[in-house]
């Protein structure tokens, strides 16, 4: 739990497309790994060893620095029952905690409702990237979704600032809630005013921000810099959501996957360095997840959809180390004879974060009781 003064903050980073766990945390001493991956494998001499059996991908050097400082909990082999190989279905399940049926309420939307039941702050939950992920969706929960922090807000197409301000002023007048205008119109008015309020608050973030950290020039680094700027502005945001796409490596994985991991490693390390520089890292934990891992055997150029991916909890409050059990590559242990078998239910990971970090009752959010991990310092 965070210290008494600062409320705990959660940053969720989604790796979209299905990150290849076997080439992220690599069982580099396992002969079956090398035999199963004649093409899409990382040579033993290139890896960054964690211990005698596991190693990080060579592009994860800065991620490994955080791990060496005991700030990264690697959760090995995370998944859900009745594995589904569709990205979309897989992502839906992760977003809604409903493996059996299609649901529309997201786990973070429900968490945000519990964190801010009176809707006191329109910025309690912010998603970076246009379009709301289902994880953040819940009826009546105001979530701010920011495409680009520097131009965020209404009428952003009007470039001349004075004209835009004038337009926003008229907008505010048009959306003033009027008595007796009807339920839907009233709701619309409040939403319009919420958007204006959120944009006004968010405008402070770039203005206040100064840092020596030079983020790289890629979308993930940009998003995490936006998260840092908003967090550092002290606007009361408790849940941030952001995404890193492109992990669906069916082909040419040896070219694409290292680049992505390099971006991930650098952006995450820069983000935490930025927070540390501003003495603002004590109350921030990041959860990194992906919808599924990839097939054990490669297909000659890439890897197809599989199961049993990994998740990561990162931050100063985290007690670093390896959690869970690495999925066995032994053919008798493989799922359906070709996939990694997970041992940690993803809802147990969520419950861990919700209860032990955010201090919420996880049961109604994840839909049951699941075994939790203990990855936080006291």
């Amino acid at each position, binding site marked *: 739990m965070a210290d008494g003064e600062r409320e705990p903050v959660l940053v969720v980073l989604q790796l979209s497309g299905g990150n290849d766990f076997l080439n992220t945390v690599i069982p580099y001493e396992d002969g079956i790994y090398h035999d199963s991956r004649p093409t899409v494998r990382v040579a033993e001499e290139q890896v960054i060893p964690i211990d005698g059996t596991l190693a990080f991908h060579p592009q994860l050097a800065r991620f490994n620095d955080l791990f060496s400082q005991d700030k990264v909990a690697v959760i090995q082999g995370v998944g859900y029952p009745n594995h589904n190989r569709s990205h979309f279905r897989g992502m839906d399940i992760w977003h809604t905690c409903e493996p059996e049926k299609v649901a*529309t309420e997201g786990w973070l939307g429900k968490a945000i409702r519990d964190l801010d039941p009176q809707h006191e702050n329109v910025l309690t939950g912010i998603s970076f990237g246009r379009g709301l992920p289902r994880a953040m969706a819940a009826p009546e929960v105001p*979530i701010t979704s920011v495409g680009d922090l520097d131009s965020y807000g209404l009428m952003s197409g009007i470039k001349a600032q004075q004209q835009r301000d004038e*337009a926003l002023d*008229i907008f505010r007048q048009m959306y003033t809630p009027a008595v007796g205008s009807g339920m*839907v119109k009233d709701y619309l008015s409040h*939403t319009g005013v919420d958007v204006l309020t959120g944009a006004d608050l968010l405008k402070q973030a770039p203005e206040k921000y100064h840092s020596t950290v030079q983020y790289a020039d890629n979308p993930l680094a940009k998003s995490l810099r936006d998260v840092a700027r908003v967090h550092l502005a002290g606007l009361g945001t408790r849940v941030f959501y952001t995404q890193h796409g492109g992990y669906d490596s069916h082909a040419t994985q040896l070219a694409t996957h290292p680049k992505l991991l390099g971006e991930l490693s650098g952006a995450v390390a820069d983000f935490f360095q930025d927070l540390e520089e501003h003495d603002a890292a004590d109350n921030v934990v990041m959860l990194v997840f992906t919808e599924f891992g990839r097939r054990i055997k490669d297909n000659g150029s890439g890897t197809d959809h599989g199961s049993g991916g990994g998740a990561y909890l990162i931050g100063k409050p985290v007690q670093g180390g390896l959690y869970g059990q690495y999925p066995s590559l032994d053919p008798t242990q493989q799922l359906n004879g070709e996939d990694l078998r997970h041992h940690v239910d993803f809802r147990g990971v969520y419950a861990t974060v919700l209860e032990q970090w955010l201090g919420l009752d996880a049961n109604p959010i994840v839909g049951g009781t699941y075994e939790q991990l203990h990855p936080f310092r006291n």
Partner: protein
Amino acid sequence: MAESDVALLAHLMRRAGFGATRAELDALAGRSYESVVEELLHPEQQPDIDEDILRRYFPGLVHQDSPGTWNARWIYRMINSRRPLEEKLTLFWHGLFATGWDKSEHTPSSISQIELFRRNALAPLRTILLELSHDPAMLYWLDNSENHRDAPNENYGRELMELFSMGLGNYSEFDVKMAARAFTGWTVEQPIPIYPYGYYPTRFVYRPEDHDDSEKTFLGETGRWNGEDIIDIIVRQPATARFIARHLYNFFVADEPQVPAWNQSPPADPRAVDTLIAEYNASSGDIRSILRVLFNSDFFKEARFCRVKSPVELVVGTVKLSGAHRLPEPGLLALPGAAGLMGQRLMNPPTVEGWHTGKEWIDGGTLNERVNFAANEVGDTRKPGVKAIVEALSNGGAPLPPAAFVDRCLELAGPLDACSTTRAALLRYAESGGELCFGADAEKEESRGRVARMLQLIVASPEYQFA
């Protein structure tokens, strides 16, 4: 044409289509309302859209691989079709029989399902349900391809009644089992995998050896029912008449509570729904006949601006206002994505329940997208629709006082009924620049900018969010 007639026709075209430009409305001058309705109800008498030019500009349409390209084509049809009701009903059926590309990731079957809805847009319900039960995208989406004689899968049998025809509470679990058994053997041919040769279409297959031909009792009627018999029984149910009537009311007249609430909450306007039910019964579920009654009714004519526009309605309606994309032009492929950011991804409804409508279209993120999309679309004075509005305002050359500036813009962009708060805000903007003048070139240039800005404010207004 009297302004009140224009407003009524504009209302009809917003609901039965995706809106009409002022020029399109003026072209209807002198026609009776009923004759315009009749023309809408007979799309087959209007020329279909010429797609040759579209294919020339968007060669992606040669392959059935990207849903985005095909959704752009659909939006192009919504903008330009001479058969607006056909496209509107295609969207209606798509929302009702909600099938997601995300599960199959098989574009050809998603495309052919939309074609099915277009082909049967105004057909009797029986025909539509029967075609739907033969549709590969649907059979795969609701697992009827896994519905076997010795291992029935109830998914399609259940949703056919719960979400596609009767609604919860009007059948028993026993009926679900019987419907599932009747549809055993209705399956799809396994398509050739996408890798490495791309998509291949699939088709419906009936496997008699996998069909349960035994006697079944379904909704109280006993026989050796096959799927077709199940549909015959379903379309005769009073619950079906009511369910379809409420759907048509919700889509064309006014926002209703969401479908799962229908077996608890009565319609907002029970008499209107009863009128539609009566026509369903009189016409044996003929959609054209029911819609004729609907569009000609007073309850429809009076229901102005009381439905929240769906994202697709907002995008297409605004493009019609700006006059863009009347011929293929860059940016068309971005339009489905714009609707997606507002919460409506065509060919990808969130669940089999379809999109939740009404106020559920609106949250902070989607409102931001709606306002910014619309404002950007009409803020460009080079677009033909904006030019035409400037032209209409400058006609005669006399300066326009602020109040007239506001009212004429509201007329030309709708006509849109602005409440007093909105009108006062727009007037404040108009007054800040004084009279609108079209004298010297510099004056004209400034006035063009002010008209565009006024249109941006109008499409940002709360009223514009409603159809």
